[in-house]
């Protein structure tokens, strides 16, 4: 066997045995403990020992979704940050960029994810969707059409959906906090 150890002694005498915390775990710890969230966003850990599964509640303080509390699940796998976190909206909401199954259209959750991004970037991106919904690249096409063609109707739909009403046969979850 080649004498690797002697080579190591010369090159890297200071190397220390490192703890058995996985790279994904360390990275999640770093991401979470450096979260810099405004008061409009709150994380909740159903099991505080499990850092990989939690929820985020967004309560916009301005814009058309003001007054609602929108809940998203975050599921991080052990291949993080190579793989992006999986994010879903837990409620049925009326939003051009969120479909009725809870899928969210946010580029950094899929095609534009890269390991240098972090949980903070994802959360900020989510909040932005409530301040500036984008009707050009919709997931809920009906909502998007309403938003660009008939803004008043759209605003009133947003309001009534947040109150848990039924719009065109779809029952929305009550998300308004007031």
């Amino acid at each position, binding site marked *: 066997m080649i*004498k690797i*150890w002697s080579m190591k002694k010369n090159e890297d005498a200071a*190397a*220390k045995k490192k*703890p058995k915390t996985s790279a994904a775990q360390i990275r999640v710890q770093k991401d979470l403990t450096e979260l810099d969230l405004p008061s409009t966003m*709150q994380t909740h850990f159903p099991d505080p020992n499990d850092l990989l599964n939690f929820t985020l509640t967004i309560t916009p303080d301005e814009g058309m979704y003001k007054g609602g509390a929108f809940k998203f699940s975050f599921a991080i796998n052990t*291949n993080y940050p190579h793989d992006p976190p999986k994010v879903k909206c837990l409620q049925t909401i009326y939003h051009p960029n969120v479909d009725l*199954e809870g899928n969210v259209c946010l580029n950094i959750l*899929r095609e534009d994810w890269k*390991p240098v991004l972090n949980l903070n970037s994802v959360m900020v991106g989510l909040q932005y969707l409530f301040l500036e919904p984008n009707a050009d690249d919709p997931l809920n096409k009906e909502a998007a059409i309403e938003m660009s063609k008939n803004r008043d109707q759209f605003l009133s739909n947003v309001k009534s959906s947040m109150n848990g009403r039924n719009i065109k046969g779809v029952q929305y979850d009550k998300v308004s906090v007031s």
Partner: protein
Amino acid sequence: MATAELTTTQKPDWAGRYFHIDQVLNSGGPRTDPQFAAGDEVKKFLRETSKILVIGAGGLGCEILANLALTGFKDIHVIDMDTIDISNLNRQFLFRPKDVGHSKANVAAEFIMKRVPGVKVTPYFGKIQDKGEDYYMQFHLVICGLDSVEARRWINATLVNMVDESNPDSLKPMIDGGTEGFKGQARVIIPTVTSCYECSLDMLNKPTAFPICTIANTPRLPEHCIEWASVLEWPKVFADKKLDTDDPEHIGWLYKVAAARAAEFKIEGVTWSLTQGVVKNIIPAIASTNAIIAAACCNEAFKIATSSAAYLNNYFMLIGTESVYSYTFEHEKRADCPVCGGEAVDINLKSDTTVEQLIDILIEKQDIQIKKPSLSTSTKQIYFQAPPQLEQATRPNLEKKVSELVPDGGDITVTATTLPFNLSIRITYSS
């Protein structure tokens, strides 16, 4: 675990068996380390002492096992969690149509033992994560022929973490191969000495992902229609049934749904083959590229085990589409690599030092420049600066003694905004 109960009839090697190999073991060459113990000593180590682990018994694994057996490794272990599929047979040459559905590790081990007398191959039909340090510690070398980033990251981190300064045997060279069509790479990783797999994570190609709104509303490519079927329609229609990309009925359903959507949008090109390729993220694979990369890996294992020639430092990359292009280079270690980089320091505490006092010590340490550190062990959080819920939950620990939370010689992972990655500290106590 399923172990093949095969007895190898231990016949002595016939005269001349190692005529070819012995030419490199009987004497050194111009590029051989002068310390090379030519002759009987090295042969004995290779054939009687050395123990090697092969991770993966697929395209690369089959080739690796055959090469190792012929070069004289006689105690070989192999792990693979997969079973044989018909699409493996164009390259995984230890398998036959009758083996479809059986464990790759078991069938491969049995085949090698039958074909190459006197070689013992011990299979494990399961996941690498099933095994712990004590298992990996028994080998001199590890060769990986894996197709998953996750598995590679896991074994890489495990082998790097196993390195123990006080135990030379804890350093296990890892040789990693990978292929994609006519392209491939082989590399030698000496944990903590050379760059590791995690150091090069950013070299990986990102798998293609399409914007979900394109899939939902503005499909243009056949792939968009296929993703619509698999990502959006499947969970909607089969709420509780998980998509199994190996089930032809599931693929058939996706194909039909995708084809209908494509027709609706006048998009051409949805085929069964493309559907399967997109949902399974199929990477083309051929026997020849696997043979090249596996041979390169095994040759490194042989040179490291015998010192009969210098070994690859440390990365070989092959592109076979246009002529034969290869590039051999030293991939550099990353200082901020979360697995092999970062700082590691020893801190000696009084047994009654509290967590809060430890944090103060860390903040005051001039050489690490740390602000607002968060601390954890591999199993629990000690103190988190954020988010509020976790800060609150861990706040009571501030007043606890470190010794209540971390054993003597235990490790703490420290992260902070001011650190590029992480710091690990080893705690010892003085009474």
